[in-house]
C-alpha cells in the first residue's frame, strides 16, 4: 500500500493489521485500498462497544484515535465540531470551559468516542429532554469504502439541503463508513441540578408516577424506573435548569410520588449506576428494547417475572428498557432473552440482545428479529460498500 503509513500495533490475531490514520484523507485512502484488495475492516474508537453485534475477524483494525480533537467551537452558535475519534469526556471538558455542555449521557461516557457513540446510537437518559444522538447531530464527514469523504448536513442547526445522511450513520455500526468529523448541538450549562429517588411497592405506582413526571410542566432531564432482583421498584428523577424551574419540577415530582405511596430521598449517583448497566452486564444476557410508552409497564412487569431476571432499567421518558438476565442454565438465558425481544416487537417496539457472555456469542444472535425494510438496508449497504469490507457480520441487516 504505497503512500500509507500502516502501523502494526498490538495485533489481535497474527493477521490483523492495525491502521491508525492521521486524518480524514488518510482514513479514506486506507478504505480505498482495502476495497481494492478486498480486505475487511473493523473500526474502533475506544473499544467500549465491542460486545454489540456479531463481530468476525477482520484483516484490518482501523482506529480513529488520531482523528480526534475539537475542530471548532463557537459558543454563541451553540455548536461544536469534533473529530470522530474525539472522546466525549474531552469534548465535555472543552465545552465546560465556555460554560456549555454536550447534552448526551451515553454509557461508557468516560471513554466513548463521538464517532463510536454515533455509530452505535448510544444514548443515555437525557434523551427525552434534549433529544438523542440523531437529534443532536447536525453534520458529519464520513470516509467511505470507495476512498471518498462525504459530507452531510453542516455546521448550522437547520439544514434541509439534500438527504439527511447523518441519520443513516446513527446506529450504522460502521457498516457504511468511518465517521471522521461530527458537528453537534450544545447548550449553555444550567445553573442548577437536583434530583430524587423514590421507592414504590408496585410497578403500577412507579410507572404511573413516572408518566406524570414525564408530562409535567417543568420538564425533567431524566426519569428512570429501576428494579433489581431483590428490592423495591425505584424511580429516579433529575432536573436541570434555572433555580425556580428545578425546584418546581422536584416539588411536583415529590407530590406525585407521595400520592402514589412512594417515599422520596435525595438522588446520589443512582443514575450513573443505572446508565452503566451495559458495562456491568458481562454475564448472562442484556436485552435492550425500545417500546411505545404505553407498553413500558406491561413489559416491565413481565420482565421481572422471568426466571433469569437480574435487573431492569427503564427510561420512562423515551421507552428504552434494558433487562439483565442471569442464569446458570444457558438455554434459559437464550430462551428468555429472545422471548423479551419478541415481546417488544409484538407491542410495536423493537429490540436486540445488546450484550451476552462471551461463551453465548455464537448461540445468541444480537438480532433475533428483523426490522421492516431490511431489504432496503441491504441495498443501502451494497451501494455504500459494494465489496463488503466494512464491519462484516457486525449488523444482521448489512
Amino acid at each position: 500500500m504505497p503512500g500509507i503509513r500502516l502501523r502494526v500495533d498490538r495485533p489481535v490475531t497474527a493477521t490483523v493489521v492495525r491502521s491508525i490514520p492521521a486524518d480524514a484523507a488518510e482514513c479514506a485512502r486506507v478504505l480505498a485500498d482495502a476495497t481494492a484488495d478486498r480486505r475487511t475492516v473493523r473500526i474502533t474508537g475506544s473499544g467500549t462497544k465491542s460486545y454489540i453485534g456479531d463481530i468476525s475477524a477482520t484483516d484490518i483494525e482501523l482506529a480513529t484515535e488520531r482523528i480526534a480533537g475539537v475542530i471548532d467551537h463557537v459558543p454563541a452558535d451553540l455548536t461544536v465540531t469534533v473529530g470522530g475519534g474525539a472522546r466525549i469526556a474531552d469534548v465535555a471538558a472543552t465545552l465546560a470551559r465556555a460554560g456549555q455542555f454536550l447534552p448526551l449521557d451515553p454509557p461508557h461516557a468516560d471513554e466513548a468516542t463521538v464517532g463510536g457513540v454515533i455509530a452505535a446510537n448510544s444514548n443515555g437518559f437525557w434523551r427525552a429532554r434534549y433529544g438523542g444522538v440523531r437529534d443532536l447531530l447536525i453534520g458529519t464527514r464520513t470516509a467511505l469504502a470507495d476512498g471518498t469523504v462525504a459530507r452531510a448536513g453542516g455546521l448550522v442547526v437547520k439544514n434541509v439541503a439534500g438527504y439527511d445522511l447523518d441519520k443513516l450513520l446513527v446506529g450504522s455500526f460502521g457498516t457504511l463508513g468511518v465517521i471522521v468529523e461530527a458537528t453537534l448541538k450544545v447548550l449553555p450549562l444550567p445553573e442548577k441540578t437536583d434530583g430524587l429517588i423514590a421507592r414504590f411497592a408496585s410497578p403500577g405506582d412507579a410507572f404511573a408516577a413516572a408518566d406524570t413526571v414525564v408530562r409535567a410542566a417543568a420538564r425533567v432531564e431524566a426519569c428512570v424506573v429501576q428494579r433489581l432482583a431483590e428490592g423495591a421498584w425505584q424511580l429516579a428523577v433529575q432536573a436541570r435548569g434555572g433555580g425556580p424551574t428545578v425546584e418546581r419540577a422536584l416539588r411536583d415530582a415529590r407530590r406525585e410520588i407521595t400520592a402514589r405511596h412512594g417515599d422520596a430521598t435525595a438522588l446520589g449517583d443512582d443514575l450513573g449506576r443505572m446508565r452503566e448497566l451495559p458495562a456491568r452486564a458481562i454475564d448472562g444476557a442484556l436485552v435492550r428494547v425500545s417500546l411505545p410508552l404505553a407498553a413500558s409497564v406491561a413489559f416491565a412487569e413481565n420482565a421481572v417475572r422471568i426466571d433469569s431476571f437480574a435487573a431492569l432499567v427503564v427510561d420512562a421518558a423515551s421507552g428504552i428498557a434494558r433487562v439483565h438476565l442471569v442464569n446458570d442454565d444457558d438455554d434459559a438465558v437464550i430462551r428468555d432473552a429472545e422471548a423479551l425481544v419478541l415481546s417488544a416487537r409484538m407491542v410495536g417496539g423493537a429490540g436486540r440482545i445488546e450484550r451476552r457472555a462471551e461463551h453465548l456469542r455464537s448461540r445468541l444472535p444480537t438480532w433475533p428479529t428483523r426490522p421492516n425494510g431490511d431489504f432496503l438496508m441491504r441495498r443501502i449497504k451494497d451501494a455504500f460498500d459494494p465489496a463488503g469490507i466494512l464491519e462484516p457480520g457486525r449488523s444482521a441487516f448489512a
Partner: protein
Amino acid sequence: MRGLVALLGPTKVLGAHDDLLLYEYDGAVDTATPDAVVLPESTADVAALARFCHEHAVPIVPRGAGTGLSGGAIPVEGGVVVSFARMARILEIDVSSLRAVVQPGVINLHLSTAVAPHGLYFVPDPSSQKACTLGGNVAENSGGPHTLAYGVTTNHVTGIEIVLSDGTVVRLGGKAVEDEGYDLVGSSVGSEGTLGLVTEITVKLTPLPEDKRTLMAAFPTMDEASETVSAIIAAGVVPSAIEMMDQLATQAVEASVHAGYPLDAGGILLVEVDGARDGLEDARARIEEICRAHAASEVRVATSALERERLWAGRKGAFAAMGRLSPDYYVQDGVIPRTRLPDILRLVKDAGTRHGLQVANVFHAGDGNLHPLILFDSRRGPDELERAKAAGLEILTACVEAGGSITGEHGVGMEKNCFMPLQFQSSDLAAMRRLKDAFDPPGLMNPGKIFPTPSRCREFAFASTAR
C-alpha cells in the same frame, strides 16, 4: 391516462386540460403542467398507481396542499401528480404513548387542534401551518418559528408507511422512539418525495407548555436586533423562538394583520419563552434587559393570549402579506451560523440594491435561518424574475461561504437543485445518490429535484465553497 382511469376509477383521476393547468404551481415561482393528476383515497390506491407508473416508466410527483416554497410539487419532468387531499384522516391519537398516526393529507394545525383537548400538540409549526399538510412537512422536513428549542419535523416523526416506486409498501419505525437497523425513517424525512410516497405518518405529541411569555422588541436598526439575538443566546437563555423582521416586512404585515408592530423601527424581534410558569418571569426579565441594553426603543410583552396571537399572526402571515408590496416575490431560505447575522444581512441588502430590487426580511433569527423576500413584478417582463434569481444566488453563495446552508426548511426542490454544488462536492452528492438508488432504482420518484440535472443546470458550474 385511460389506463389510470381503468385502474382507479374516474373520480380519482384528472386529465382534462383545464384541470391540469391548476396543478402546475405551488407556493413558489416555478411551474410545469402534469400529464395527469391522481387523488388516491388509500394506500392501496397509491400502491396500484406506483405499480402502473413503474410499468410505464412514468414519473410520480407527490403534492400536499401545494404551499411549498421550492417547487417540490411541480412535475418538472411531466408525469403524474399525486394529490393527497383525500387522504386526510387522523387515524389514531395515542395519548398514553404521546403519538398520533395520521394520513399525509392532514393539515398541520388540524392535528394540534385535535390533540389540544389532551393537553398535547405537534411541535413543528411552519408559518403555513393553517394550510400545509403533514405529508408535505415530512417531505420537506419543515421547521417553523418554534423549532429553535424543540427541533424540526424529523425530530418528531417516529414512523412512516412508504410506497416505493415498484409499488412495494413498507412500514418503517412505529410508535417506539427508534427501530433496529439503519434509521430509514430519519433518512426519508426531508427527502422531498424522491424516495417514495409516504402514505402514513406516526408523529410525537408534546405536552403543551404551561405558560409562555412573548415579547416584541423594536430596534433602530437590524444590526442592533441581530446583536441582541446572539446576546440572548450567550446569556444562557434558550427561548422557544426568536424571530426577526425588517422595516419593509413590518409595514407589509401591518397593512394586512395589524399585529401592532411599530412602523418606524429598523428591526423587530419577536421572542418567546415557554415552559413551567416558575422561571418564565426571570427569563422574560433577562431578555427584556438584554434588548434594552442593545438600544431597543420599545419592548412590549403580550399580556393576554389574544395579544400573543396577534403578535404571531403578523409573523405567520408575513410571506403572504408581501402581495401588498409587490405582485411577486422570490423567497430564499439560506442558513448561517447566527453569529454571522449582521454581516450577511448587510450583504442581502446590497444584493438587492445591485439588482435594483427591494428585499424584505422575515426570518428565524434564533437558528440563523434567513428568509429574504426579493420583490419583483413579472408583469414588467421576464427579466424581473431573472434578476430576482440572480440576487438570490448571491445571497445563497454568501450563506454557504459563512459555513451555512442553501436551505433551512423550504427544501431544495427544482428551485435550488442547480445550487447544490455550492454546498456539496460531487463525492457528497454521490453518497446521497446511493441512498436514492437504493429506494428508487428506476428514478421515477419526483425526478428533477434535489440533484442537479444536466438539462436545467448547464449554466451553473460551481466549485463547492463549503469547507
